[in-house]
């Protein structure tokens, strides 16, 4: 991407924005002016105003409070599913790449099965079984996105395996575990961090999309996508109900992506900035 300063500044701004969102998520109970599910039947679908800074939805719930709690849900979901997926992917990728040969071939072909389905579809299938609560959703998201990490890790292992210093380590009698933990893993921290930073917005995007079409997180969990779905029905006369969560989703994903690009440029010089991410749709 662009050179030096501008890019750096953009990443900095994104970091600050994300910090604010993260802080809001962490401090939700103290920050939100109302409980996220408190309904005020006397003030349904109010426009932004003094009592309700961002207005209310069709149950008279404060949109700002729901937005803040929604940040909590999105962040929890994004970060935990990305971390779980990364750990799963590391384990699988290491096993595949390090063991090599037939095992590698078999393990990679198993991945083809998962790759044969669109991510969102697979997530939907899993949530039918795991339930549409927060844990079910996190599990479903993790179970789908570890595949990318596994491929990345395996590729890195194959690249590093033949390196001289590994032979040296082996010659010095280092065990497999030691080789993996001390010599392999630290070498791929950069690409892993980049992947992680792209998995988080991908998870947030997936969840909000599913919630928007009504098959994501089950109410009353305040999810941005679910809020947008509420607003969709009222779009004609009360567009603020859908615009508020939409902006939140867009800003969060945008800043994560900018930050991811930045990390990619810094930590992953071998690859063009595009390569760090998979097509997500």
């Amino acid at each position, binding site marked *: 991407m662009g050179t030096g300063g501008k890019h750096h500044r953009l990443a900095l701004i994104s970091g600050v924005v994300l910090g604010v969102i993260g802080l809001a998520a962490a401090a939700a109970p103290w920050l939100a002016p109302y409980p996220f599910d408190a309904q005020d039947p006397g003030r349904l679908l109010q426009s932004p105003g003094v009592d309700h800074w961002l207005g209310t939805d069709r149950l008279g719930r404060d949109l700002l409070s729901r937005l803040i709690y929604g940040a909590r849900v999105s962040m929890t979901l994004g970060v935990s599913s990305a971390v779980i997926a990364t750990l799963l992917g590391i384990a699988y990728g290491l096993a595949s790449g390090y063991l090599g040969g037939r095992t590698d071939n078999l393990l990679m072909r198993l991945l083809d099965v998962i790759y044969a389905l669109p991510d969102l579809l697979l997530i939907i299938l899993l949530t039918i079984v795991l339930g549409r609560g927060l844990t079910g959703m996190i599990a479903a998201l993790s179970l789908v996105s570890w595949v990318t990490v596994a491929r990345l890790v395996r590729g890195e292992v194959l690249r590093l395996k033949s390196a001289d210093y590994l032979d040296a380590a082996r010659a010095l009698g280092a065990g497999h575990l030691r080789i993996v933990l001390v010599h392999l893993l630290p070498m791929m921290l950069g690409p892993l961090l980049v992947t992680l930073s792209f998995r988080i917005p991908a998870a947030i995007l997936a969840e909000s999309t599913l919630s928007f079409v009504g098959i994501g997180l089950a109410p009353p969990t305040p999810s941005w996508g679910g809020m947008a779905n509420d607003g969709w029905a*009222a779009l004609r006369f009360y567009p603020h109900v859908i615009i508020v969560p939409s902006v939140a989703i867009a800003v969060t994903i945008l800043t994560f992506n900018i930050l991811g690009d930045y990390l990619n440029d810094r930590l992953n010089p071998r690859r063009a900035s595009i390569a760090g991410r998979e097509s997500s749709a």
Partner: protein
Amino acid sequence: MLPRMHETVRRAGWRGVLGLLVFCVSGAVAAAPPPAVLRLSIASEPPTLDWSLATDNVSITVIENLMEGLTAFDDQLRPMPAVASRWDVSPDGLTYTFHLRDDVRWTDGRPVTARDFEYGWKRLLNPATGAEYAYFLYDLVNAYEYNSGRLTDASQVGVTAVDDTTLRVQLKKPIVYFPSITAFVVTFPQRRDLIERYGRRWTDPGRLVTNGPFTLADWRHEYKVVLRANPAYAWGRPSIDEVRMYVINDRSTALTLYETGDLDLVPLPPEAIPFYERSPEFVRVPILRGYYYGFNVTTPPFDDPRVRQAFALAIDKSEFPALLKGGELPTNSWIPAGMFAYNPAVGLAYDPAAARARLAEAGYPAGRGFPAVTAAYNTDPVNTVIAENLQAQWKRTLGVAIAIDNQEWKVYLKRLQTQPPPLYRLGWGADYPDPDNFMALFTSQSGNNHSRWSNAGYDALIARAASTGDPAQRQRLYDDAQRILTEQDVPIIPLFVASQNYLIKPSLHGLRLNAMELLTLKEVSIR
């Protein structure tokens, strides 16, 4: 924002630009529309047009416009002659003989005969059909036995075509409202030859043969159903040529399409009502759909009828219409307005003093010592508003703090069936417009009575009313039963009857919107 219409002029300019994208689009490119087309939205795809299998409103609405049965409802929802020109009831009330008109024809020219009815009814009851609404005919002799597999010989079921124009029906017990049941789609005639020839696909456009005002011209699944006027309709060809029913699940989208002139009739979502209430295009129709709270009468504190009465007396139901704004009609009695035996004088009206006294009698003066209970409802904005309002009212009047809890519909339903919560919300929409449909709901053997309340006196009254022909006497029986249900035992608190709100283009005339939520289109004209 007022409805904006007819923007076609401005849109036309874009056709050129869009030429780029035409490369793979099928479908008509805005061909000149036929003279009289009615366009409306339906809330979902009709799951089936096979009237033995239809159970939902959308399917039934479509089928109602394609078919005629033995009887049909008039504006007051009384069953009137249709394919049957008249019917006789035997003195013991157990045998109905329907005499059919001989001039009603299927769209392929064949006359509609009593054999088509016999076949259709037996197909409904055939266990292999797997029809949910088979129980509609359980009152026929041997119908239940045949449907449950205890009897395999269909000829013993109590429906027989004596000849082409005479259909004899034998009942297990006298049922005075039976002609209301024969107005319902599951009892409509069916063509054995076509169903056997085409199998499950006999309802496809081009194959489906009907006898009603319209024929099925096209059916794009999850998208639209197109009906065309039946020129051979025995009661005269409808004045409109075509009806297009678009499947639009989102009412906000439907509303925009109405405003852009793409639809002529839309149901109005509650949040939009304030914007249209004063429009001449706004129409409100009360429907036979009751909304109530039930008690689980087997567990304390609601095992004490005095507590249940106190809860009923404590509700000021006039608050609901102001909250919901959908034209809800508060009610204390259970049989809804618009149905036979409706009696607004029955039931417990709002009386805070009496409510407090009743609760004190039961041992909870000013709500002191009242155990923690939860009111449950299925997730829905209307239900939430009502639950919160009731929570506040009970707190205010009785000093009782109730927790509220909601669940997704299917989960909720499971819970009602296995372990009913102390207080629960439910609704009931009429299957046929007879009080029996509403009152039999709370008899001991009803599968939909989740209150676990059982009263032999009530059961006996409902059974007697079902076979009582004299209207005055029947009214008295239902009044007595309603008193037990809503004043004395109070296993449920009726809250309100719902309305349906529509926007209708002023050019539309003759549309009949009845309380059964069905759209009767045969008399519609567009001017």
